[in-house]
């Protein structure tokens, strides 16, 4: 029995080495160090009566470290580096030209407003703040969209993109047991983890073509076609993470065709609405196209990047259904999933978004700031492209830097080349070749170009 064996295990750390064969930390009780004296019998006085009583060894004796997060590891390595020219292109959080974190003015305004209002801190309903749910759906689908007017969207406030994705994953697990989610290769690292934890099987569809440093469109279509009917296809609504490569509108049309043919369900992850092009509507075009075809669509939203609300954890899960009645049922089940996860979502981020989107002046300001942020990234892309093109005499086509969109760029550098970027040039990035342009300033573009050219040509 697990507990009896555990109580025989030594309390010292060295014994836990025996448990190293643990798969994901699950206990392998085949290895117990019996040679040590039984440490769990201790005489102890409790002040009420002296007795020999087993001092309980932790039940979680053999648990090993979880694997480190690859992205955060980059930031840590960066911090430890003393070099004056070091550059952090790891984590995807927006930085100003001065490479400082940025709190949007409109957010500061609303925070002040909320402080003055001094509203109560009562529980939100399980589905979240009604005012927030209304504006977030309207933002994504368009306020005049028939699906909104017909009340066919089940919207539930979630904890940013991650929390919203998890709610959807749990819904899929419950109502489509055995159904697969297809995720792009590559995709955001946490997607796999979320589906794993939610016990939803997944497989990959081809996406990134290293030869063109662009989209492997044929591979993508073929893989979506080949998936079992009724699969969930996870699509990045705009500004694909990590590649920065988005399908064109025409390609989106073909993707929609194939999904409809195969009776798949499109599942959008929209983490950058407004941040990619600078326009909220433009960035929602892919989702709106699918919805306009009458398709039932799942869409997870996040306000972490476009409102800089990373730490407030505000987002939403939307399920566009064929009828308002279905939407009501789906919403009730999303609530049923949320209640034993956290009971009800946090209020502050929701109030910020509701106030900004609900006030036309603040909404305008937000749009302007978003254009500014997206604009800075576009400028940086241009400068980087120009630097690369002028410095590199090999004739290599660097235009993918301009074609890609959003915070991230897949440089096409392999692992060895990435290591060179870090070790020789003190440029920190993830090993898949992804750089975060949000962490790049115009001033550093030339330096980065030198680093990329050197790594690309001189390292294999």
């Amino acid at each position, binding site marked *: 029995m697990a507990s009896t064996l555990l109580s025989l295990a030594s309390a010292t750390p060295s014994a836990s080495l025996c448990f190293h064969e643990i798969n994901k930390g699950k206990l392998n009780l085949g290895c117990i160090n019996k040679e040590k004296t039984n440490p769990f019998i201790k005489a102890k006085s409790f002040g009420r009566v002296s007795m020999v009583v087993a001092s309980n060894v932790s*039940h979680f004796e053999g648990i090993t470290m979880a694997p480190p997060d690859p992205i955060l590891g980059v930031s840590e390595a960066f911090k430890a580096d003393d070099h004056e020219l070091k550059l952090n292109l790891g984590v995807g959080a927006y930085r100003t030209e001065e490479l400082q974190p940025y709190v949007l003015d409109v957010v500061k305004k609303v925070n002040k407003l909320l402080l003055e209002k001094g509203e109560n801190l009562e529980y939100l309903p399980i589905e979240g703040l009604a005012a927030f749910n209304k504006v977030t759906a309207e933002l994504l689908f368009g306020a005049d969209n028939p699906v909104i007017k017909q009340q066919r969207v089940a919207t539930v406030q979630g*904890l940013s993109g991650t929390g919203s994705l998890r709610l959807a994953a749990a819904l899929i697990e419950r109502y489509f047991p055995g159904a697969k989610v297809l995720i792009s290769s590559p995709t955001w690292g946490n997607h796999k983890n979320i589906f794993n*934890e939610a016990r939803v099987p997944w497989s990959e569809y081809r996406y990134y073509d290293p030869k063109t440093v662009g989209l492997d469109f044929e591979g993508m279509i073929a893989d979506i076609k080949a998936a079992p009917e009724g699969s969930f296809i996870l699509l990045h609504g705009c500004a694909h993470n990590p590649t920065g490569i988005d399908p064109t509108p025409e390609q989106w049309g073909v993707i929609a065709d194939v999904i409809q043919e195969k009776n798949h369900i499109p599942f959008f992850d929209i983490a950058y609405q407004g941040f990619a092009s600078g326009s909220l509507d433009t960035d929602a075009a892919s989702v709106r196209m699918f919805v306009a075809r009458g398709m039932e669509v799942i869409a997870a939203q996040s306000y972490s990047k476009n409102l800089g609300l990373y730490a407030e954890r505000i987002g939403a899960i939307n399920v566009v259904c064929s009828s308002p009645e279905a939407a009501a049922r789906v919403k009730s089940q999303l609530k049923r999933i949320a209640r034993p996860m956290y009971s009800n979502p946090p209020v502050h981020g929701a109030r910020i978004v509701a106030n900004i989107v609900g006030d036309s002046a603040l909404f305008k300001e937000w749009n302007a700031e978003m254009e500014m942020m997206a604009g800075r990234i576009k400028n940086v892309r241009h400068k980087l492209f120009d630097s690369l093109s002028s410095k590199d005499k090999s004739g290599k086509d660097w235009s993918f830097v301009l074609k890609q969109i959003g915070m991230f760029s897949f440089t096409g550098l392999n692992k060895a080349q990435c290591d060179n970027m870090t070790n020789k040039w003190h440029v920190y990035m993830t090993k898949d070749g992804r750089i975060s342009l949000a962490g790049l300033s115009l001033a550093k573009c030339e330096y980065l170009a030198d680093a990329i050219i050197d790594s690309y040509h001189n390292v294999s």
Partner: protein
Amino acid sequence: MIISRFLRRGISTSTSPTRRRSWWDHVTPALKDPINAVTDAFLADPCPYKINLGVGAYRDDEGKPVVLQCVREAEGKTGATNFLESTSTAISSKLVEESAKLIYGEDSDVIKERRFAGIPALSGTGACRIFAEFQKQFYPDSTIYFPDPTWSNHRNIWGDAHVPDRTFHYYHPDSKGLNFVALMDDVKNAPDGSFFLLQPCAHNPTGVDPTDEQWLEISSLFKVKNHFPFFDVAYQGFASGDVERDAQAIRIFLEDGHSIGCAQSFAKNMGLYGHRVGCLSILCNDKIQAVAIKSQLKQISNTMYGSPPIHGISLVSKILSNPDIKALWLKEVKVMATRIQRMRATLREALERLGSPLNWQHITNQVGMFCFSGLTRAEVDQLAKEFHIYMTHDGRISMAGVTTKNVDYVARAIHEVTASDRDIKILHNIGAYKVNTDICSTSLGTKKTRARGMNLAL
């Protein structure tokens, strides 16, 4: 629920905007959350003197929600806008450290030796859920023992983590107190090394807490059985008004050498309901193990929602780490707990003054926000229908909803609906029995006829 795919085979033409694929036909409406359903019914009631004794959220004597002054002060100091990734980590660590000090004691060895793994969590629910997932991951065949009864959401939390549950005896419906003998039996008979959920103070829903002596015995037995104690601490400060006092059960277990787990919520005792702030901690053998366990807890939370929102975390960490604000908080907790204690006494007195022969001692014996009134489902329904007083079906009254203005009304309503119980009691007392009873006049001045077949054997 295995859904036959061919039920959902759709039309494969592509671009007609009027054709609708319908994926969700098999999704049935979820059952309403029992506690929220009470609030919904309350909100839907147009009666101007309706009373909500359902959800456990504190109200002042005007029946209004309260934002504590210590929270307002912390708001003023935290500079709400500047939450950047760098400061977020530091603030989160501070929250965990301060929470651990609050529950384990500042001078505890556990704190000094850093022998705990802790992460901020989405209030109590979030902390429990992360622990349930952790338990499932590392003890996949384990179960969880809940007190009978317990908070309705506990079952769903562990259930969604795929951990089956059992119960142990807790509430004694006759005494309306603790069924200690049966509790100890169940603890003894559970397989060694079982996981138990314990509420250290202000038990929800019953308000029945073990005494210190009983906790000592429970702790001893837990040692013998090598059970894992997981404490759900939702009301530290709310039971007695003193946060140290309310942590006694935990301190007892600590002194006995248990390596416990603990879910803390700041929803009630700091009035931060909507911010979702809490802490999950697990005691370890040493610092090294603490680091490993923390990494596993973080991984679980990363796949559920990332991290909890910084705003609430920052408020709690400021309140607990700033001595002046903390002192203010402790005062305010005492005020809240005292008001509830006063309402308990007042309600009981009112019922006794009405001449109710029933025993209402439990109203003042029970502790914390809730009173397990002993009212039957039918009586609860009657209270809602006729008196517009709302509470959960199990007869749980949130005392926080009782005010000096409404306590008499509540007393009279309870007195009225327990008429038949009173009749039984009276008849018991006078040694008679009756068939087909009778008219009972209410103290609200209306006569109500009830046809009832009562056959009382003596």
